[in-house]
């Protein structure tokens, strides 16, 4: 029988730590659709990364938002607010729900009133920890509670709003969808040098690439002869073969437990 842990989640104290847009391994179709709709309808005011714009507040670092129930969040988007947000009823209920799902995944939080207080843990978290920092080499790239690498997303709060199935899917079939800031590109410079790394930013004029050694490379687009977009992140794609079902279950258990363990450094009221 799978052990269960209680999720000690208090909506009022949830803060988003170390979020980066590249923490997006496992999103369902709904969230993927929500990402599209968010860019269409919301980003103009709330910013492309939902971190706020001049016309509207950040959605991920505003502490009052996690306190709202799904129904309350839905109503805000559907009917607008007295504070100046227009209603978005016209985009349809399904799109509103998709946007909310996208934002929840993005922030790694579940709104307080819909948090499941019990989480099924399919394996042994301690063995999972050993895998995370050992054989599975997750910590090579991913931070967990202050330990691990830097090139990929911080997984400390990753599992907070995800089920075991979500996480297994993210590990075994990564990059669905691929977060733009995680995309591996291969640049060829005018001198023929090839650089392979993760694209932290690009525009018409420049490319900002980070290689796995942590080094940032700042390039003028005009000085780059080829940009090969690999359409994938650095995440290995062979975990389904490399890890046994039990190991996978253990690893997922470790993530689930970690994501639901209150961080000791987290502020209470202050």
């Amino acid at each position, binding site marked *: 029988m799978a052990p269960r842990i209680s999720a000690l989640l208090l909506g009022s104290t949830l803060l988003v730590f170390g*979020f980066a847009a590249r923490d997006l391994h496992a999103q369902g179709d709904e969230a993927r659709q929500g990402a599209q709709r968010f860019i269409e309808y919301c980003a103009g005011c709330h910013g492309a990364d939902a971190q706020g714009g001049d016309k509207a507040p950040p959605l991920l670092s505003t502490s009052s938002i996690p306190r709202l129930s799904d129904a309350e969040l839905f109503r805000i988007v559907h009917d607008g607010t007295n504070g100046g947000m227009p209603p978005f009823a016209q985009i349809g209920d399904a799109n509103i729900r998709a946007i909310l799902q996208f934002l929840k995944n993005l922030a790694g939080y579940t709104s307080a009133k819909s948090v499941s207080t019990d989480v099924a843990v399919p394996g042994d978290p301690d063995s999972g920890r050993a895998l995370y920092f050992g054989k599975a080499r997750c910590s090579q790239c991913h931070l967990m509670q202050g330990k691990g690498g830097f090139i990929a997303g911080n997984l400390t709060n990753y599992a907070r709003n995800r089920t075991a199935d979500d996480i297994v899917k993210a590990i075994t079939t990564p990059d669905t969808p691929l977060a733009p800031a995680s995309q591996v590109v291969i640049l060829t410079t005018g001198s023929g040098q090839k650089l392979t790394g993760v694209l932290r930013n690009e525009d018409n004029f420049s490319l900002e690439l980070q290689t796995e050694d942590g080094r940032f490379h700042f390039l003028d687009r005009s000085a780059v002869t080829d940009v090969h977009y690999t359409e994938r992140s650095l995440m290995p794609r062979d975990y389904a073969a490399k890890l046994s079902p039990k190991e996978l279950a253990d690893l997922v258990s470790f993530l689930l437990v970690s994501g639901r363990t209150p961080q000791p450094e987290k502020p209470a009221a202050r």
Partner: protein
Amino acid sequence: MTRLARPGAPQHKPSASHVCLGCALRSLAALCFLLAFHAATAFGQAVNGSAHSPGVDTRPSTDSSGVINIQQQDLLQKPVFANWPSYNGDYTGARYSALQQITPANAPRLAAQWVFHPHTVSPLEVTPVVVAGIMFVTSANDAFALDAKTGNVLWHHVRAISPGLIDDPGQHRNRGVAILGTRLYMETDNAHLLCLDARSGHLLWEVAYATGNKNYGATSAPLIVKDKVVVGISGGDDGVRGFLAAFDAATGEEKWRFWTIPAPGEKGNESWPGDTYLHGGGSTWMPGTYDPDLNTLYWGTGNPAPDYDGRLRPGDDLYTSCLLALDPDTGTLKWYFQFSPHDLYDYDAVQTPVLVDASLQGQPRKLAVTANRNGFLYILDRATGKFLFGKSFIDSQNWATGLDENGRPISAGLIPDEKGVRVCPANGGATNWYSPSYNPATHMFYFRSFEACALIQSNAPSFAEGRAYYASGIQTAGENGKAYINAFSLDTLDFAWRSLQFGRNKGWGGVMSTATGLIAFGDDGLNFVIAEGRTGRPLWHFHLGQLVHASPMSYAVDGRQYFAIAAGSDIFSFALP
């Protein structure tokens, strides 16, 4: 060719010998930069002398490598070149750049390069830190890494602002980051020390370092000293007990804490009857400076609380309105100098104590130079704390009739009461936290001053958490102030020039200086100004459209020198075309 260096001052002659050829990561970039220097010379542009003391490493650190890995030698570098690795640039607090590409001759051709808008609070008070072509800035509790050439965001650490704070922390002001190795350190509005991986912006650890009084907050940038991160606190006007604390940079473990208000049984506690020491103020809300040779950390403290009512705190109110000299390894007090004993006018002493090695009246000395909020400029012996020189820098000075031979002010006996007394300088200070600057080549000390008076009233306050502890309802200025940018010569011990500032706004912009004899500052007309340091004559300005509440810095990437400054809710960067 303009030469601003004093005759006989060593000239900076870039050559390959200055380059650490063993540093594989740096050498190519360094050579590129040196080539740029030579190119500038070839075009007949001024390459001026800079004063590098014998024994000082003059190797230009022209690191554009994109590799974040700040070592002790980078932090000890003075003056700074391409990198600007800490709040004031180097440990002396001189806010002086050795970069020489931008000169009086070409400064009129400066042009805006990019603007970064973090979409959070205004005004920004941050000084950007630049390492290896990456700029780090903060806005409220958020931190950003930017491509210093383009302003593009590399990563963004998001953290919600803290609800329920008051006063300055309640406005979520933040002055920036410190870097050591691959790690970034910052203070949050609610006085947590964050350690982030500077390569990703991910949180490594966090320490809540001010507890027990909800009025604590933080607005400053941390200072790295050896293997420790030193942080201060805000909230002195709101009845907190000030302290300075040092944490292990690797683990976040607290190593020492110096309380600026002595507890019962400690020297100085006689000013703090009962439990008033718990609310005595003396906050530590600006970064200090550090002398590695004397192994001494210098840190200014804020005013006592309650601010305008001294009846609860008889005596000198140690260690408020002081410069503290501390052992950075233990936090032990070596000496202190109190600028405003028993302050009644909100005269914080957190203005940067600039560490200057210069001759004073013919004798080479290790000095600390500071223009104080109380209207006096001080020169101290920084080995002993001995007062060497003082001078009033505002004409309307009326709270003290002068300084005695030990530098102690001779009080004019103005006691705020319910009716109020007119005090000059006003409570906002004859200068304030905005940075001063010292140019070691010209021996000129630059700072912004503000000439104003205020009617200071006092009503006995009571302390409560969640409420400011100001001892007054109102302070009425009732008269317009006059702002100056000042150049004080350590050679003549007098002002070389004072430049009256025009504009509809009261600027809060600091000053910096460069090895080519330039100064840079934000003015009262919403402009960023580059001026000739010898005369104060403006050479170029750019209308920022927003008031500067911050101090400028300079950096270089790929052989190109930039100036950067925060104004309003944006960061601006400038360079030659």
